[in-house]
């Protein structure tokens, strides 16, 4: 054994096998979930209660973001030690990050194409088909709306609500919550809103918080674009 002496290492990577429990959810109905999970936890040994848990969804294709958030809240509320979301064709690392979770691919095990329907080709055509999402109900605090294309909202967006779109975001009402356009990195994405009172606006990862919004555009109709690294605000007249 040779020992090379330079700086004392302050870290060490360890390849360690760890036991993780995968929690496969077949339905996200909160009351049923709450009841069944708490029942299972009661029956389980302390070891299981402390175990790190990866959430996997039986039907990730039809999952709604809000329900997923509520599910994570429910599980955390019950003391489940959530660490990650199982990543697949329909749930990506961004979704996991949004939920405050890490993401892990369970592929390599049973996971690659679970059924012929989820083959990549079919998946691409569905994402093409889901274009613009139109919302005509108020988006309330705690709700989150994700569009694979553009997102059009015809009602107020409350403080604490979050709009995410891979394309443009239009709000034909007051925007008090957060609006994140071009979340997949589309720098040409834009945000339009009738009355800007947002907590945060973001285009392709560049963002401004409420404090940094230009004063002359507050509570005005605006059009926000990204110009290189700078966000540009213009009157929408």
């Amino acid at each position: 054994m040779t020992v090379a002496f330079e700086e004392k290492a302050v870290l060490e990577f360890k390849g360690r096998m760890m036991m993780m429990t995968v929690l496969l959810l077949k339905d996200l109905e909160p009351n049923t979930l709450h009841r069944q999970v708490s029942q299972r936890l009661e029956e389980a040994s302390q070891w299981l209660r402390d175990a790190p848990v990866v959430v996997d969804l039986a039907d990730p294709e039809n999952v709604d973001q809000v329900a997923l958030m509520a599910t994570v809240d429910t599980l955390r509320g019950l003391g489940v030690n959530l660490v990650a979301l199982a990543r697949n064709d329909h749930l990506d690392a961004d979704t996991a990050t949004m939920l405050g979770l890490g993401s892990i691919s369970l592929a390599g095990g049973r996971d690659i194409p679970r059924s012929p329907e989820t083959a990549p080709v079919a998946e691409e055509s569905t994402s093409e088909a889901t274009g613009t999402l139109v919302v005509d109900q108020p988006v309330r605090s705690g709700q989150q709306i994700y569009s694979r294309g553009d997102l059009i909202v015809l009602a107020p967006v409350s403080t604490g609500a979050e709009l995410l779109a891979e394309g443009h975001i239009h709000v034909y009402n007051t925007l008090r919550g957060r609006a994140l356009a071009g979340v997949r990195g589309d720098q040409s994405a834009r945000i339009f809103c009738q009355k800007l009172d947002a907590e945060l606006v973001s285009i392709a990862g560049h963002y401004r918080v409420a404090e940094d919004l230009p004063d002359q555009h507050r509570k005005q109709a605006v059009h926000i674009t990204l110009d290189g690294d700078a966000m540009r605000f213009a009157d929408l007249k």
Partner: protein
Amino acid sequence: MTKIVVVTSGKGGVGKTTTSAALATGLAQRGHKTTVIDFDVGLRNLDLIMGCERRVVYDLVNVISGDANLKQGLIKDKRVEDLFILPASQTRDKDALTLEGVEKVLNGLKDMGMEYIICDSPAGIEKGALTAAYFADEAIVVTNPEVSSVRDSDRILGILSSKTRKAELGEGDIPASLLLTRYSPERVERGEMLSVEDVKDILAIDLLGVIPESQAVLNASNSGAPVILDSDSDAGQAYDDSVARFLGEQRPHRFLTTSKKGLFGRLFGAQ
């Protein structure tokens, strides 16, 4: 036909129980057979506000778990005909409040010919609040004119739009209306409180009523008589207006502006 109404808010201490008691009493005063249920298992208060705390034998959880039948659990109000109270349990575990159990109780009340069932929701957005709201046909959201209360109400409205039985059955959102409580026009004028218009603008729902900040509410709680029975008080009258509006009557909103000072007030008034 029975109508189930949930009184909810998200935030605690904004006047849900006071409102539930006043609404139920007001409906019963008008001859509608009404039960008010306290869903706040572990922190029961409704019986105090209704002044029946010394007559509680059984509670909601007892009825659900079958220790008592519905008739034994219901307390008949002594002042108003057609008014019944189903108190919450102070001691039992709130996990006993299952949806199946609650549905059974509600169906029992329907069979008894109740016209209105008022569900006094616990604060928060946890299971208790969701259970209270699940079977509702209509919601009354109680809000104080301050930012955190408004935001919590907004959160609850979002939850109501997806977590009621009607929403799950695809029958759409249940109608929700706003009851603004502890409103002080003086403080609104001084810019210390949100105005009715501000709150309506943020929440974007119909306004059922505005209850002024009033000593009468505190007196009512202390004496165990719903404030609506104090018909001389501003808060009592405002609740009475709200009940009338709830039943479809058109009444102008009162107590929204500072009371005009008389001549002497203007001449000698402080401030």
